[in-house]
């Protein structure tokens, strides 16, 4: 894409240095825990050691005897205000504090309010709770067996642990295709539970001003407006009206989906502040964050592919059991309890497909999509890309060749998939070709063959994924009924500077820079002259927040649309100033000039000044616009990743030798920022592929509940990622842009898993579930009688 603006303006395509950086590199960011208000109290939480237990007694006397402990809040206290249960973002219900029983280990049981955080911690240690353990269900398959204990005894008519059944696609046509197929392959794939573990944990400072009757909450949230509305709906009966609630999402230390849900700690802090009239801070520590906050994945998948002898794919059939923990609190769009999992036909032209998913309750914390996954797209891509390799290897066809044969061709776009998505644009062949050239694919296959003769284990894995982001069109997308538009409100000042506010919320994605770049592109105002704000619900226009890579597709489009409204008015003013008809004006970024007489011109700054000092009679003064953008479709970024691994036969260690990522997110606003998103996303794809897992023993005790065993990769485990791009604009987006923040997390795990299985296929290995630990590899080698 050619640059339309010069560097001084900094429109699309420029790697403008970030406007947010000056405060962060000086340590002057304002994260929630940095907020300190006069008289502020601290909240700390007592948590259950049991995964399922009746609460017999909570003895708060020792805690209350500690000087500085002001109160111990229990479920019974909240019950008085009907705040002990609240709705989840999926219209299920969740406990804020339990009255009868706990349903997962580390569940919040009581909260201690104290004058400082050390006293609060002592208070927590002094609260004594008597539990009577109940039978624990951690295996969703066991939870579905007839006769399994019913977990949700709070639901009067519930007789089992089945949450919902969801299916999509043409089952009859798919079954027929499987019957008629030359070849079918089937594989069970388990994608275990993981936790996104942004370096900043979750927390809030709730400040209820008794005089104003107004609640202000500084909160680690990716969706401040939605939170405000939820609080108003949930706590309206205790006097909190929406205009008296202000959510401030300040600087956020990473979100990735983990800061979308409403955690009990927030609600208790709000209640405590309303009751005391004092500011109350709740900041969880890391173990609380890992053990209780929203997880991601935990999908038990059985996938099948049908095809012809020559490797042409004909049908896809998937059955999934979704372990949701004790309640469905995944923040999916309400019509899609399995998120966008049905993008699982991927980059291939399937004639028929069918997918069904069953959600199940277990004694674990709730969640499901809080790890940079675009609403279950990581699961979808893992499934289709692992299966593509499985079929390719089964037929003895090179995995790259197999993909090339089955890719949707560029002339087929816009492409309607067998599962109903209309892909806007794509060039899968181009991306894979580029990745293959960059990594030297043919040479690597030759090297692999040589090494295999010597018993050395080397693997090459491909992931050619299609992403689906930018939720979403109001026809199909809402969260708790709130449609998933997003917004931009732009105002140009008399001296030609601008302020722009959005309904999204950056947690590191660089919106203060990239949104300014959109305005720079559209209006020719330099990035340095544009102030971008997000996150304060008192001032920002309503939006659904930032997650699922939706900001550029939705709010970015709103920015363009609002800018164009401003430009239309600016044109009228310029015509008036230059005394010509609007059609006689030529626009270049930052300036209107008269056609044929370019020396007669007005800059956008001069026009802005005139909007306040010399606007045409009959026209309103000012120069501003709002856009609430309802996207006509999602956008479909894509890419091809190729991973090369070497396996240590003695230890089972998998070493990533090289990883090439070719991404296509359409027209790019800031190449530096996009590249950074890819680097980070790849690392969050590496982590679940080789290192991360949260699991439970049969008593519901968590394993991997701290950084001792929940393994985040360091700079030593992380390869030097190699990135490149192709550019296939979105035809429906005003800027031709697509989202990109999650592409790499979505696409990378399959490339790594495919590489390992590719290295071991000749030994009879067909699948190793992620995380592919050295132990698992060693075991697979041992089973194949291979040792050092």
């Amino acid at each position, binding site marked *: 894409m050619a640059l339309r603006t010069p560097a001084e303006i900094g429109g699309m395509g420029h790697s403008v*240095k*970030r406007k*947010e*950086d*000056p*405060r*962060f*590199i*000086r*340590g*002057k*960011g304002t*994260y929630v*825990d*940095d907020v*300190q208000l006069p008289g502020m109290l601290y909240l700390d939480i007592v948590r259950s050691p049991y995964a399922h237990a009746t609460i017999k007694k909570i003895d708060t006397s020792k805690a209350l005897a500690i000087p500085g402990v002001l109160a111990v809040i229990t479920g019974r206290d909240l019950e008085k205000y009907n705040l002990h249960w609240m709705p989840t973002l999926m219209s299920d219900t969740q406990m804020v504090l339990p009255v009868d029983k706990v349903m997962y280990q580390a569940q919040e049981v009581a909260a201690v309010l104290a004058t400082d*955080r*050390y006293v609060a911690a002592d208070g927590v240690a002094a609260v004594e709770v008597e539990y009577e353990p109940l039978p624990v269900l951690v295996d969703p398959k066991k939870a579905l067996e007839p006769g399994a204990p019913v977990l949700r005894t709070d639901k009067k008519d519930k007789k089992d642990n089945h949450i919902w059944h969801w299916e999509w696609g043409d089952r009859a046509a798919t079954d027929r295709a499987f019957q008629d197929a030359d070849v079918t392959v089937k594989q069970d794939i388990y994608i275990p539970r993981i936790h*996104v*573990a*942004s*370096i*900043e*944990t979750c927390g809030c400072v709730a400040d209820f001003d008794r005089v104003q009757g107004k609640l202000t909450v500084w909160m680690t949230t990716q969706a401040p407006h939605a939170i405000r509305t939820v609080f108003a709906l949930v706590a309206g009966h205790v006097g909190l009206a929406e205009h008296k609630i202000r959510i401030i999402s300040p*600087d*956020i*230390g*990473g979100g*990735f989906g983990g800061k979308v849900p409403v955690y009990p700690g927030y609600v208790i802090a709000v209640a405590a502040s309303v009751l005391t009239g004092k500011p109350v801070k709740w900041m969880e*520590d*890391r*173990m609380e964050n890992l053990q209780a906050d929203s997880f991601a994945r935990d999908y038990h998948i059985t996938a099948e592919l049908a095809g012809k002898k020559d490797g042409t794919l004909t049908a896809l059939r998937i059955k999934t059991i979704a372990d949701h923990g004790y309640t469905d609190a995944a923040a999916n769009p309400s019509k899609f309890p399995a998120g966008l999992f049905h993008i699982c036909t991927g980059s291939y032209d399937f004639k028929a497909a069918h997918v069904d998913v069953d959600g199940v309750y277990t004694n674990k914390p709730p969640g499901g999509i809080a790890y940079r996954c675009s609403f279950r797209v990581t699961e979808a891509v893992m499934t289709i890309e692992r299966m593509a390799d499985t079929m390719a290897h089964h037929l003895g066809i090179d995995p790259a060749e197999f993909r090339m044969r089955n890719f949707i061709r560029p002339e087929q776009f816009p492409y309607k998939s067998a599962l109903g998505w209309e892909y806007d644009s794509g060039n899968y062949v181009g991306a894979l070709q580029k990745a293959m050239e960059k990594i030297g694919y043919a040479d690597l296959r030759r090297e692999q063959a040589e090494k295999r003769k010597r018993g050395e284990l080397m693997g090459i894995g491909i992931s050619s994924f299609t992403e689906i982001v930018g939720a979403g069109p109001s026809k199909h997308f809402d969260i708790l009924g709130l449609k998933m538009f997003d917004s931009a409100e732009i105002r140009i000042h008399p001296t030609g500077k601008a302020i722009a506010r959005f309904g999204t919320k950056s*947690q*590191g*994605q*660089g919106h203060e820079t990239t949104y300014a770049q959109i305005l720079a592109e559209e209006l020719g105002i330099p990035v340095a002259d544009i102030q971008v704000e997000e996150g304060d619900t008192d001032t920002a226009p309503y939006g659904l927040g930032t997650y699922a890579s939706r900001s550029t597709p939705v709010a970015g489009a709103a920015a363009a649309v609002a800018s164009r409204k401003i430009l239309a008015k600016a044109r009228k003013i310029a015509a008036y100033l230059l005394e010509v008809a609007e059609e006689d004006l030529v626009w270049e970024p930052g300036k209107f000039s008269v056609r044929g007489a370019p020396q007669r011109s007005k800059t956008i700054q001069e026009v802005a000044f005139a909007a306040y000092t010399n606007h045409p009679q009959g026209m309103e003064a000012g120069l501003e616009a709002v856009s609430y953008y309802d996207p006509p479709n999602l956008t479909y970024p894509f890419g091809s990743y190729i991973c090369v691994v070497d396996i240590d036969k003695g230890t089972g260690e998998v070493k990533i030798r090289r990883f090439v990522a070719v991404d296509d997110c359409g027209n790019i606003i800031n190449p*530096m*920022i996009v*590249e*950074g*998103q*890819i*680097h*980070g*996303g*790849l*690392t*969050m794809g590496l982590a679940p592929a080789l290192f991360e897992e949260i699991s439970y023993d049969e008593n519901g005790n968590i394993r991997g509940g*701290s*950084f*001792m065993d929940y393994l*985040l990769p*360091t*700079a*030593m485990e*992380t390869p*030097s*990622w190699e990135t490149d791009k192709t550019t296939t604009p979105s035809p429906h987006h005003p800027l031709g842009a697509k989202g990109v923040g999650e592409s790499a997390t979505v696409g990378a795990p399959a490339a790594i898993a495919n590489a390992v299985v590719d290295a071991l296929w000749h030994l009879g290995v067909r699948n190793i579930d992620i995380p592919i630990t050295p132990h698992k590899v060693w075991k697979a080698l041992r089973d194949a009688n291979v040792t050092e």
Partner: protein
Amino acid sequence: MRVQVTINGEKREADVEPRLLLVHLIRDMLRLTGTHIGCDTTHCGACTVLLDGRPVKSCTVFAVQADGRELLTVEGLEQNGKLHPLQEGFMQEHGLQCGYCTPGMLMTSYAFLKETPNPTEGDIRWAISGNLCRCTGYVNIVKSIQYAAAKLRQGGV
């Protein structure tokens, strides 16, 4: 207990319990909130500060241990309105996204470059292996440190 520290060149005092963690002294009492808390098992390094010139994880040191000693935090890197080459490097090379791990990365690499002014990529990755980042994937952090190393070698201060 009375604790006296020289932090970023300034003498500060506070009355503390022996169990007060150094990171809480710095953040809550001295109100220098650039140093961050990211975990509870001494893994993440977001709390890294320099104690007598050596990077330490301030969440795993008691404030009383720093009595009479010198501390340098991220707020102390900029001198007389001039950014340290590392701070410049992180901005130039997009070495930060959410900014939360950044102060820890800056402090670790500040001490590291004093000792190893001409590091390889491998040296840098090794040096920051006690500091976790979730956003950047480390590639640009390495580049930021390389930028600063080059600038420091050229005599930029």
